[in-house]
Protein backbone atom coordinates (compact mmCIF):
# COMPACT_ATOMS: atom_id res chain seq x y z
CA UNK A 1 0.00 0.00 0.00
CA UNK A 2 1.13 3.54 -0.64
CA UNK A 3 1.46 6.06 2.17
CA UNK A 4 -1.67 7.82 0.94
CA UNK A 5 -3.67 4.58 0.93
CA UNK A 6 -2.58 3.76 4.47
CA UNK A 7 -3.44 7.27 5.62
CA UNK A 8 -6.91 7.00 4.05
CA UNK A 9 -7.39 3.68 5.80
CA UNK A 10 -6.52 5.30 9.15
CA UNK A 11 -8.92 8.19 8.47
CA UNK A 12 -11.67 5.66 7.70
CA UNK A 13 -11.03 3.79 10.95
CA UNK A 14 -11.22 7.01 12.95
CA UNK A 15 -14.42 8.10 11.21
CA UNK A 16 -16.24 5.31 13.04
CA UNK A 17 -15.69 7.00 16.40
CA UNK A 18 -18.38 9.24 17.76
CA UNK A 19 -16.40 11.37 20.20
CA UNK A 20 -12.92 12.21 21.38
CA UNK A 21 -13.05 9.57 24.13
CA UNK A 22 -13.38 6.76 21.61
CA UNK A 23 -10.62 8.28 19.49
CA UNK A 24 -8.32 8.53 22.47
CA UNK A 25 -9.12 5.02 23.64
CA UNK A 26 -8.13 3.78 20.19
CA UNK A 27 -4.89 5.81 20.23
CA UNK A 28 -4.08 4.33 23.63
CA UNK A 29 -4.72 0.83 22.24
CA UNK A 30 -2.40 1.59 19.33
CA UNK A 31 0.19 2.83 21.80
CA UNK A 32 0.12 -0.54 23.53
CA UNK A 33 0.56 -2.46 20.29
CA UNK A 34 3.39 -0.35 18.83
CA UNK A 35 6.38 -2.26 17.50
CA UNK A 36 8.86 -1.28 20.14
CA UNK A 37 12.29 0.06 19.45
CA UNK A 38 15.19 -2.28 20.27
CA UNK A 39 16.21 -1.20 23.80
CA UNK A 40 19.78 -0.72 22.50
CA UNK A 41 18.48 2.15 20.38
CA UNK A 42 16.80 3.92 23.31
CA UNK A 43 19.74 6.27 23.50
CA UNK A 44 19.94 10.01 24.10
CA UNK A 45 20.85 10.54 20.46
CA UNK A 46 17.57 8.91 19.36
CA UNK A 47 15.56 11.08 21.75
CA UNK A 48 13.15 13.51 20.10
CA UNK A 49 13.50 17.00 21.54
CA UNK A 50 10.59 19.03 22.86
CA UNK A 51 8.66 16.16 24.35
CA UNK A 52 7.44 16.12 27.96
CA UNK A 53 7.22 12.35 27.88
CA UNK A 54 10.45 10.98 26.45
CA UNK A 55 10.10 9.79 22.85
CA UNK A 56 12.72 7.73 21.00
CA UNK A 57 12.79 7.08 17.26
CA UNK A 58 15.03 4.72 15.30
CA UNK A 59 15.24 4.14 11.55
CA UNK A 60 17.03 1.59 9.42
CA UNK A 61 17.05 0.74 5.75
CA UNK A 62 15.93 -2.73 4.72
CA UNK A 63 15.54 -3.65 1.06
CA UNK A 64 15.40 0.01 0.06
CA UNK A 65 12.61 0.71 2.51
CA UNK A 66 12.84 2.49 5.83
CA UNK A 67 11.76 0.63 8.95
CA UNK A 68 10.91 2.98 11.81
CA UNK A 69 10.55 1.93 15.43
CA UNK A 70 9.74 4.11 18.43
CA UNK A 71 8.91 4.15 22.10
CA UNK A 72 7.69 6.73 24.59
CA UNK A 73 7.11 7.01 28.32
CA UNK A 74 3.66 8.43 27.62
CA UNK A 75 0.94 6.25 26.16
CA UNK A 76 -0.79 8.98 24.11
CA UNK A 77 2.48 10.06 22.56
CA UNK A 78 3.26 6.40 21.90
CA UNK A 79 -0.14 5.92 20.26
CA UNK A 80 0.33 8.84 17.89
CA UNK A 81 3.87 7.67 17.16
CA UNK A 82 2.33 4.28 16.29
CA UNK A 83 -0.03 5.98 13.82
CA UNK A 84 2.84 7.85 12.20
CA UNK A 85 4.93 4.70 11.99
CA UNK A 86 2.07 2.80 10.43
CA UNK A 87 1.77 5.51 7.80
CA UNK A 88 5.46 5.86 7.01
CA UNK A 89 7.31 2.69 7.93
CA UNK A 90 8.24 0.17 5.24
CA UNK A 91 8.16 2.83 2.52
CA UNK A 92 10.78 4.14 0.11
CA UNK A 93 12.73 7.22 1.27
CA UNK A 94 11.55 9.39 -1.64
CA UNK A 95 7.90 8.52 -1.03
CA UNK A 96 8.30 9.52 2.61
CA UNK A 97 9.93 12.82 1.68
CA UNK A 98 7.09 13.64 -0.73
CA UNK A 99 4.24 12.78 1.65
CA UNK A 100 2.29 14.99 4.03
CA UNK A 101 0.57 14.55 7.39
CA UNK A 102 -2.78 16.19 6.63
CA UNK A 103 -4.53 13.00 7.73
CA UNK A 104 -3.65 13.79 11.35
CA UNK A 105 -5.97 16.78 11.08
CA UNK A 106 -8.69 14.60 9.54
CA UNK A 107 -8.59 12.13 12.44
CA UNK A 108 -9.12 14.95 14.94
CA UNK A 109 -5.62 15.10 16.38
CA UNK A 110 -4.68 18.47 14.98
CA UNK A 111 -3.97 19.92 18.41
CA UNK A 112 -1.20 17.37 18.90
CA UNK A 113 0.65 18.73 15.91
CA UNK A 114 0.69 22.33 17.10
CA UNK A 115 4.32 23.50 17.26
CA UNK A 116 3.76 24.89 20.74
CA UNK A 117 2.40 21.64 22.12
CA UNK A 118 4.99 20.03 24.38
CA UNK A 119 4.70 16.56 22.91
CA UNK A 120 7.45 16.61 20.30
CA UNK A 121 5.32 15.12 17.52
CA UNK A 122 6.19 17.90 15.11
CA UNK A 123 9.82 17.11 15.85
CA UNK A 124 9.11 13.44 15.31
CA UNK A 125 7.69 14.06 11.83
CA UNK A 126 10.69 16.24 11.04
CA UNK A 127 12.97 13.44 12.22
CA UNK A 128 11.10 10.82 10.15
CA UNK A 129 11.71 13.00 7.11
CA UNK A 130 15.35 13.70 7.98
CA UNK A 131 16.01 9.95 8.05
CA UNK A 132 14.28 9.59 4.68
CA UNK A 133 16.40 12.40 3.27
CA UNK A 134 19.60 10.89 4.64
CA UNK A 135 18.79 7.42 3.27
CA UNK A 136 17.75 8.81 -0.12
CA UNK A 137 21.16 10.45 -0.48
CA UNK A 138 22.94 7.22 0.40
CA UNK A 139 21.16 5.27 -2.29
Amino acid at each position, binding site marked *: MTIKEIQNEIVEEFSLFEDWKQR*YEYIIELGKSIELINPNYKTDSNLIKGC*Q*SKLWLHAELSREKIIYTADS*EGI*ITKGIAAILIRAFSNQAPLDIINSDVKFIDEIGLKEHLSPTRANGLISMIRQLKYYALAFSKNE
Partner: protein
Amino acid sequence: MSFDINKIRDEFPILKRKVNGYPFVYLDNAATSQKPKAVIDSIVNYYSNYNSNIHRGIHTVSQEATDAYENARHIIQTHFNIKHSHEIIFTSGTTHSINLVANGFENLLNHEDEILISGLEHHSNIVPWQMMCQKNKAQIKVIPMNENGELNLSIFEKLLSNKTKLVFVTHISNALGTINPIKEIIQKAHEIGAVVLVDGAQACSHFKTDLQELNADFYTTSAHKLCGPTGIGMLYGKEEWLKKMPPYQGGGEMIANVTFEKTTYAELPHKFEAGTPNIVGAIGFGEAINYLNKIGFDNIKNHESNLLKYATKKLKMIPNIKIYGDYIDKTSVISFNIGEIHSYDIGAILDKFGIAVRTGQHCAQPIMDYFKISGTVRVSFSFYNTIEEIDYLHKSLLRAVSMLS
Protein backbone atom coordinates in the same frame (compact mmCIF):
# COMPACT_ATOMS: atom_id res chain seq x y z
CA MET B 1 -16.60 42.05 52.57
CA SER B 2 -18.34 38.71 52.75
CA PHE B 3 -17.05 35.96 50.50
CA ASP B 4 -19.61 35.23 47.80
CA ILE B 5 -18.01 32.77 45.39
CA ASN B 6 -20.63 33.25 42.68
CA LYS B 7 -20.23 36.99 42.75
CA ILE B 8 -16.45 36.62 42.60
CA ARG B 9 -16.61 34.23 39.64
CA ASP B 10 -18.83 36.72 37.83
CA GLU B 11 -15.98 39.20 37.94
CA PHE B 12 -13.71 36.92 35.87
CA PRO B 13 -14.93 36.94 32.25
CA ILE B 14 -12.72 34.00 31.22
CA LEU B 15 -14.38 31.64 33.71
CA LYS B 16 -17.54 31.73 31.60
CA ARG B 17 -15.94 30.19 28.53
CA LYS B 18 -15.97 26.58 27.41
CA VAL B 19 -12.98 24.46 26.49
CA ASN B 20 -13.43 21.43 24.22
CA GLY B 21 -17.15 21.66 24.81
CA TYR B 22 -16.91 21.56 28.62
CA PRO B 23 -17.05 24.42 31.16
CA PHE B 24 -13.52 25.75 31.64
CA VAL B 25 -11.98 24.57 34.91
CA TYR B 26 -8.79 26.50 35.52
CA LEU B 27 -6.46 24.73 37.96
CA ASP B 28 -3.15 26.15 36.73
CA ASN B 29 -3.12 29.17 39.02
CA ALA B 30 0.47 28.69 40.15
CA ALA B 31 1.52 29.34 36.53
CA THR B 32 -0.59 32.46 36.20
CA SER B 33 -3.81 33.81 37.63
CA GLN B 34 -6.93 34.88 35.75
CA LYS B 35 -7.81 38.57 35.60
CA PRO B 36 -10.87 40.24 37.12
CA LYS B 37 -12.84 42.84 35.20
CA ALA B 38 -11.46 45.62 37.40
CA VAL B 39 -7.92 44.92 36.16
CA ILE B 40 -8.96 44.47 32.53
CA ASP B 41 -10.94 47.73 32.73
CA SER B 42 -7.98 49.62 34.19
CA ILE B 43 -5.91 48.60 31.15
CA VAL B 44 -8.62 49.58 28.67
CA ASN B 45 -9.21 52.84 30.56
CA TYR B 46 -5.53 53.76 30.43
CA TYR B 47 -5.26 53.28 26.68
CA SER B 48 -8.69 54.84 26.03
CA ASN B 49 -8.32 57.92 28.20
CA TYR B 50 -4.87 58.89 29.38
CA ASN B 51 -2.16 57.03 27.48
CA SER B 52 0.96 59.18 27.53
CA ASN B 53 4.63 58.90 28.33
CA ILE B 54 5.41 59.65 31.94
CA HIS B 55 7.70 61.82 34.08
CA ARG B 56 9.13 64.12 31.43
CA GLY B 57 5.90 65.47 30.03
CA ILE B 58 4.59 68.89 30.93
CA HIS B 59 1.16 68.28 29.46
CA THR B 60 -1.96 67.30 31.38
CA VAL B 61 -2.37 63.76 30.09
CA SER B 62 1.29 62.95 30.73
CA GLN B 63 0.80 64.17 34.28
CA GLU B 64 -2.29 61.95 34.68
CA ALA B 65 -0.34 58.94 33.44
CA THR B 66 2.58 59.77 35.75
CA ASP B 67 0.22 60.11 38.72
CA ALA B 68 -1.42 56.76 37.96
CA TYR B 69 1.98 55.04 37.59
CA GLU B 70 3.30 56.50 40.84
CA ASN B 71 -0.01 55.77 42.54
CA ALA B 72 0.51 52.10 41.66
CA ARG B 73 3.88 52.26 43.42
CA HIS B 74 2.12 53.76 46.41
CA ILE B 75 -0.49 50.97 46.47
CA ILE B 76 2.34 48.40 46.46
CA GLN B 77 4.15 50.30 49.20
CA THR B 78 1.08 50.28 51.44
CA HIS B 79 0.25 46.66 50.68
CA PHE B 80 3.71 45.34 51.56
CA ASN B 81 4.30 47.95 54.29
CA ILE B 82 7.47 49.18 52.62
CA LYS B 83 9.30 52.05 54.32
CA HIS B 84 10.11 54.18 51.27
CA SER B 85 8.33 54.15 47.92
CA HIS B 86 11.70 54.49 46.18
CA GLU B 87 12.63 51.06 47.51
CA ILE B 88 10.19 49.64 44.93
CA ILE B 89 11.57 49.08 41.44
CA PHE B 90 9.15 48.14 38.69
CA THR B 91 10.61 45.25 36.72
CA SER B 92 9.18 42.96 34.05
CA GLY B 93 8.73 40.31 36.72
CA THR B 94 10.53 38.04 39.13
CA THR B 95 13.11 36.76 36.65
CA HIS B 96 14.06 40.31 35.72
CA SER B 97 14.26 41.28 39.42
CA ILE B 98 16.60 38.41 40.22
CA ASN B 99 18.82 39.24 37.26
CA LEU B 100 18.90 42.84 38.42
CA VAL B 101 20.16 41.84 41.86
CA ALA B 102 22.61 39.25 40.50
CA ASN B 103 24.00 41.86 38.16
CA GLY B 104 24.23 44.36 41.02
CA PHE B 105 26.22 41.94 43.15
CA GLU B 106 28.63 40.91 40.43
CA ASN B 107 31.22 43.45 41.56
CA LEU B 108 30.32 43.27 45.23
CA LEU B 109 31.41 39.61 45.54
CA ASN B 110 34.64 37.75 44.76
CA HIS B 111 36.04 34.22 44.58
CA GLU B 112 36.22 33.87 48.37
CA ASP B 113 32.51 34.51 48.78
CA GLU B 114 29.67 32.02 48.82
CA ILE B 115 25.99 32.28 48.05
CA LEU B 116 23.39 29.84 49.34
CA ILE B 117 20.44 28.82 47.19
CA SER B 118 17.60 26.59 48.34
CA GLY B 119 17.18 23.19 46.70
CA LEU B 120 13.57 24.13 45.94
CA GLU B 121 14.45 26.80 43.44
CA HIS B 122 12.80 27.44 40.12
CA HIS B 123 15.20 27.55 37.10
CA SER B 124 14.99 31.31 36.89
CA ASN B 125 16.35 31.53 40.43
CA ILE B 126 19.42 29.45 39.67
CA VAL B 127 20.65 30.59 36.28
CA PRO B 128 21.27 34.31 37.06
CA TRP B 129 23.51 33.28 39.96
CA GLN B 130 25.41 30.78 37.88
CA MET B 131 26.02 33.53 35.35
CA MET B 132 27.15 35.90 38.09
CA CYS B 133 29.47 33.28 39.60
CA GLN B 134 31.08 32.65 36.21
CA LYS B 135 32.18 36.26 36.30
CA ASN B 136 33.12 36.90 39.93
CA LYS B 137 34.02 33.26 40.76
CA ALA B 138 31.91 33.22 43.91
CA GLN B 139 30.70 29.74 44.94
CA ILE B 140 27.11 28.46 44.97
CA LYS B 141 26.06 26.14 47.79
CA VAL B 142 22.68 24.42 47.85
CA ILE B 143 20.42 24.09 50.90
CA PRO B 144 18.98 20.57 50.48
CA MET B 145 15.35 19.55 50.95
CA ASN B 146 13.79 16.51 52.62
CA GLU B 147 11.12 14.14 51.30
CA ASN B 148 8.34 16.47 52.44
CA GLY B 149 9.73 19.17 50.22
CA GLU B 150 10.96 21.19 53.21
CA LEU B 151 14.35 22.83 53.43
CA ASN B 152 16.77 21.18 55.80
CA LEU B 153 17.42 24.02 58.23
CA SER B 154 20.13 22.27 60.25
CA ILE B 155 22.21 21.84 57.07
CA PHE B 156 21.44 25.46 56.18
CA GLU B 157 22.92 26.55 59.50
CA LYS B 158 26.00 24.44 58.90
CA LEU B 159 26.45 25.94 55.44
CA LEU B 160 26.28 29.48 56.80
CA SER B 161 29.74 30.89 57.48
CA ASN B 162 31.55 34.18 57.33
CA LYS B 163 32.07 33.42 53.63
CA THR B 164 28.30 33.51 53.00
CA LYS B 165 27.38 36.84 51.48
CA LEU B 166 24.01 36.10 49.94
CA VAL B 167 21.09 33.77 50.57
CA PHE B 168 18.41 33.16 47.93
CA VAL B 169 15.30 31.41 48.89
CA THR B 170 11.84 31.12 47.51
CA HIS B 171 8.99 32.05 49.84
CA ILE B 172 6.96 29.19 48.39
CA SER B 173 8.08 26.32 46.18
CA ASN B 174 6.70 26.50 42.65
CA ALA B 175 6.45 22.74 42.19
CA LEU B 176 5.20 21.62 45.59
CA GLY B 177 3.69 24.69 47.25
CA THR B 178 5.82 24.34 50.39
CA ILE B 179 5.97 27.50 52.50
CA ASN B 180 9.56 28.04 53.61
CA PRO B 181 10.41 29.31 57.10
CA ILE B 182 11.93 32.43 55.58
CA LYS B 183 11.70 34.53 58.71
CA GLU B 184 14.02 32.15 60.49
CA ILE B 185 16.29 31.92 57.44
CA ILE B 186 16.54 35.72 57.21
CA GLN B 187 17.33 36.00 60.92
CA LYS B 188 20.09 33.38 60.75
CA ALA B 189 21.57 34.89 57.59
CA HIS B 190 21.57 38.36 59.12
CA GLU B 191 23.41 37.08 62.19
CA ILE B 192 26.44 36.46 59.99
CA GLY B 193 25.88 39.57 57.88
CA ALA B 194 24.57 37.91 54.70
CA VAL B 195 22.03 39.57 52.41
CA VAL B 196 18.75 37.76 51.70
CA LEU B 197 16.66 37.85 48.52
CA VAL B 198 13.25 36.22 48.72
CA ASP B 199 11.29 35.17 45.63
CA GLY B 200 7.69 35.91 46.49
CA ALA B 201 6.19 35.03 43.10
CA GLN B 202 4.17 32.10 44.43
CA ALA B 203 3.37 33.72 47.78
CA CYS B 204 1.78 37.08 47.07
CA SER B 205 -1.49 35.74 45.66
CA HIS B 206 -2.09 33.70 48.81
CA PHE B 207 -1.21 36.02 51.67
CA LYS B 208 -0.12 39.51 52.56
CA THR B 209 3.51 40.00 53.55
CA ASP B 210 4.77 42.83 55.75
CA LEU B 211 8.22 43.46 54.34
CA GLN B 212 9.45 45.61 57.22
CA GLU B 213 8.49 42.91 59.66
CA LEU B 214 9.98 40.15 57.48
CA ASN B 215 13.18 42.18 57.20
CA ALA B 216 14.33 40.64 53.88
CA ASP B 217 16.90 42.76 52.06
CA PHE B 218 15.27 42.06 48.71
CA TYR B 219 11.85 40.70 47.85
CA THR B 220 10.36 40.18 44.43
CA THR B 221 7.07 39.25 42.84
CA SER B 222 5.28 39.14 39.47
CA ALA B 223 1.92 40.85 39.02
CA HIS B 224 0.48 38.16 36.77
CA LYS B 225 0.49 35.65 39.63
CA LEU B 226 -1.83 37.88 41.64
CA CYS B 227 -4.54 38.80 39.14
CA GLY B 228 -2.42 41.53 37.50
CA PRO B 229 -1.08 41.75 33.93
CA THR B 230 1.92 39.87 32.56
CA GLY B 231 5.23 41.63 31.97
CA ILE B 232 5.25 43.63 35.20
CA GLY B 233 6.58 42.88 38.65
CA MET B 234 8.44 44.52 41.45
CA LEU B 235 11.74 44.32 43.17
CA TYR B 236 11.80 45.60 46.70
CA GLY B 237 15.28 46.38 47.96
CA LYS B 238 16.44 48.07 51.12
CA GLU B 239 17.60 51.56 50.27
CA GLU B 240 21.19 50.91 51.41
CA TRP B 241 21.53 47.96 49.01
CA LEU B 242 19.84 49.63 46.07
CA LYS B 243 22.22 52.55 46.51
CA LYS B 244 25.24 50.25 46.52
CA MET B 245 24.23 48.41 43.37
CA PRO B 246 25.18 49.86 39.98
CA PRO B 247 22.38 50.40 37.42
CA TYR B 248 21.37 47.33 35.47
CA GLN B 249 20.52 48.83 32.12
CA GLY B 250 21.43 52.12 30.50
CA GLY B 251 18.83 54.37 28.94
CA GLY B 252 16.46 57.24 29.54
CA GLU B 253 14.85 57.86 32.93
CA MET B 254 17.79 56.38 34.88
CA ILE B 255 19.97 59.37 34.19
CA ALA B 256 20.41 62.64 36.07
CA ASN B 257 23.03 64.25 33.88
CA VAL B 258 24.86 63.06 30.78
CA THR B 259 27.90 64.51 29.12
CA PHE B 260 30.22 62.53 26.88
CA GLU B 261 32.65 62.24 29.77
CA LYS B 262 30.40 61.15 32.57
CA THR B 263 26.84 60.22 33.41
CA THR B 264 25.35 60.79 36.82
CA TYR B 265 22.60 58.38 37.65
CA ALA B 266 19.16 59.39 38.73
CA GLU B 267 17.93 58.85 42.25
CA LEU B 268 16.09 55.70 43.27
CA PRO B 269 13.90 54.17 41.93
CA HIS B 270 14.57 55.69 38.48
CA LYS B 271 18.18 54.51 38.50
CA PHE B 272 16.82 51.01 37.84
CA GLU B 273 13.92 51.95 35.57
CA ALA B 274 15.66 52.78 32.31
CA GLY B 275 13.55 53.71 29.30
CA THR B 276 9.77 54.03 29.06
CA PRO B 277 8.47 51.64 31.68
CA ASN B 278 5.48 49.33 31.47
CA ILE B 279 3.09 52.10 32.52
CA VAL B 280 -0.16 50.25 31.90
CA GLY B 281 1.33 47.16 33.55
CA ALA B 282 2.08 49.07 36.72
CA ILE B 283 -1.44 50.54 36.75
CA GLY B 284 -2.96 47.07 36.31
CA PHE B 285 -0.64 45.72 39.03
CA GLY B 286 -1.88 48.35 41.48
CA GLU B 287 -5.49 47.66 40.52
CA ALA B 288 -4.97 43.92 41.11
CA ILE B 289 -3.62 44.56 44.61
CA ASN B 290 -6.59 46.79 45.37
CA TYR B 291 -8.92 44.09 44.06
CA LEU B 292 -7.38 41.34 46.22
CA ASN B 293 -7.52 43.54 49.29
CA LYS B 294 -11.18 44.21 48.61
CA ILE B 295 -11.82 40.44 48.57
CA GLY B 296 -9.68 40.23 51.71
CA PHE B 297 -6.64 38.03 52.22
CA ASP B 298 -8.27 36.35 55.22
CA ASN B 299 -11.15 35.29 52.96
CA ILE B 300 -8.73 34.16 50.25
CA LYS B 301 -6.67 32.11 52.68
CA ASN B 302 -9.71 30.58 54.24
CA HIS B 303 -11.32 29.56 50.95
CA GLU B 304 -8.08 28.25 49.44
CA SER B 305 -7.27 26.21 52.50
CA ASN B 306 -10.76 24.65 52.37
CA LEU B 307 -10.22 23.79 48.70
CA LEU B 308 -6.80 22.29 49.45
CA LYS B 309 -8.12 20.15 52.32
CA TYR B 310 -11.10 18.96 50.30
CA ALA B 311 -9.04 18.24 47.17
CA THR B 312 -6.32 16.40 49.10
CA LYS B 313 -8.92 14.19 50.77
CA LYS B 314 -10.70 13.56 47.49
CA LEU B 315 -7.57 12.86 45.42
CA LYS B 316 -6.21 10.48 48.05
CA MET B 317 -9.21 8.26 47.33
CA ILE B 318 -7.80 7.57 43.86
CA PRO B 319 -5.97 4.21 43.89
CA ASN B 320 -2.16 4.38 43.45
CA ILE B 321 -1.97 8.16 43.68
CA LYS B 322 1.24 9.60 45.08
CA ILE B 323 1.16 13.19 46.29
CA TYR B 324 4.56 14.93 46.55
CA GLY B 325 5.35 17.38 49.31
CA ASP B 326 2.24 16.31 51.16
CA TYR B 327 3.13 18.63 53.94
CA ILE B 328 0.90 20.61 56.21
CA ASP B 329 2.42 24.08 55.68
CA LYS B 330 1.84 24.68 51.98
CA THR B 331 -0.33 26.76 49.70
CA SER B 332 -3.16 25.40 47.58
CA VAL B 333 -0.98 23.27 45.30
CA ILE B 334 -1.12 19.49 44.85
CA SER B 335 1.62 17.79 42.84
CA PHE B 336 0.98 14.11 42.10
CA ASN B 337 1.36 11.05 39.92
CA ILE B 338 -0.99 8.09 39.55
CA GLY B 339 0.62 4.67 39.32
CA GLU B 340 2.86 4.35 36.30
CA ILE B 341 0.81 6.73 34.14
CA HIS B 342 2.85 9.55 32.65
CA SER B 343 1.85 13.02 33.83
CA TYR B 344 1.58 14.26 30.26
CA ASP B 345 -1.08 11.64 29.44
CA ILE B 346 -3.19 12.67 32.42
CA GLY B 347 -2.85 16.34 31.50
CA ALA B 348 -3.85 15.66 27.89
CA ILE B 349 -7.02 13.79 28.91
CA LEU B 350 -7.95 16.40 31.55
CA ASP B 351 -7.57 19.07 28.86
CA LYS B 352 -10.10 17.22 26.72
CA PHE B 353 -12.47 17.46 29.70
CA GLY B 354 -11.91 21.24 29.84
CA ILE B 355 -9.58 21.13 32.86
CA ALA B 356 -6.35 23.13 32.74
CA VAL B 357 -3.51 21.68 34.84
CA ARG B 358 0.26 21.74 34.51
CA THR B 359 2.36 18.67 33.81
CA GLY B 360 6.09 18.08 33.64
CA GLN B 361 8.91 19.42 35.72
CA HIS B 362 7.45 22.85 36.55
CA CYS B 363 10.86 24.46 35.84
CA ALA B 364 12.14 22.67 38.91
CA GLN B 365 14.32 19.85 37.68
CA PRO B 366 16.34 19.59 40.92
CA ILE B 367 13.14 18.71 42.79
CA MET B 368 12.18 16.13 40.17
CA ASP B 369 15.68 14.63 40.38
CA TYR B 370 15.28 14.41 44.14
CA PHE B 371 12.11 12.35 43.80
CA LYS B 372 13.58 10.47 40.79
CA ILE B 373 10.56 11.25 38.63
CA SER B 374 10.30 12.80 35.19
CA GLY B 375 7.45 15.08 36.19
CA THR B 376 4.17 15.44 38.04
CA VAL B 377 0.63 16.62 37.45
CA ARG B 378 0.20 19.85 39.36
CA VAL B 379 -3.17 21.32 40.25
CA SER B 380 -3.16 24.73 41.90
CA PHE B 381 -6.25 26.45 43.26
CA SER B 382 -7.20 30.07 43.55
CA PHE B 383 -9.93 31.82 45.51
CA TYR B 384 -12.24 31.70 42.47
CA ASN B 385 -12.16 27.88 42.28
CA THR B 386 -14.99 25.83 43.75
CA ILE B 387 -15.67 22.55 45.54
CA GLU B 388 -17.75 21.51 42.51
CA GLU B 389 -14.70 21.97 40.28
CA ILE B 390 -12.71 19.65 42.55
CA ASP B 391 -15.47 17.03 42.33
CA TYR B 392 -15.32 17.35 38.55
CA LEU B 393 -11.51 17.03 38.64
CA HIS B 394 -11.82 13.89 40.74
CA LYS B 395 -14.39 12.37 38.38
CA SER B 396 -12.34 13.29 35.32
CA LEU B 397 -9.17 11.84 36.84
CA LEU B 398 -10.94 8.53 37.43
CA ARG B 399 -12.09 8.52 33.81
CA ALA B 400 -8.58 9.41 32.63
CA VAL B 401 -7.09 6.58 34.68
CA SER B 402 -9.58 4.07 33.31
CA MET B 403 -8.81 5.22 29.76
CA LEU B 404 -5.06 5.15 30.27
CA SER B 405 -4.61 1.89 32.15
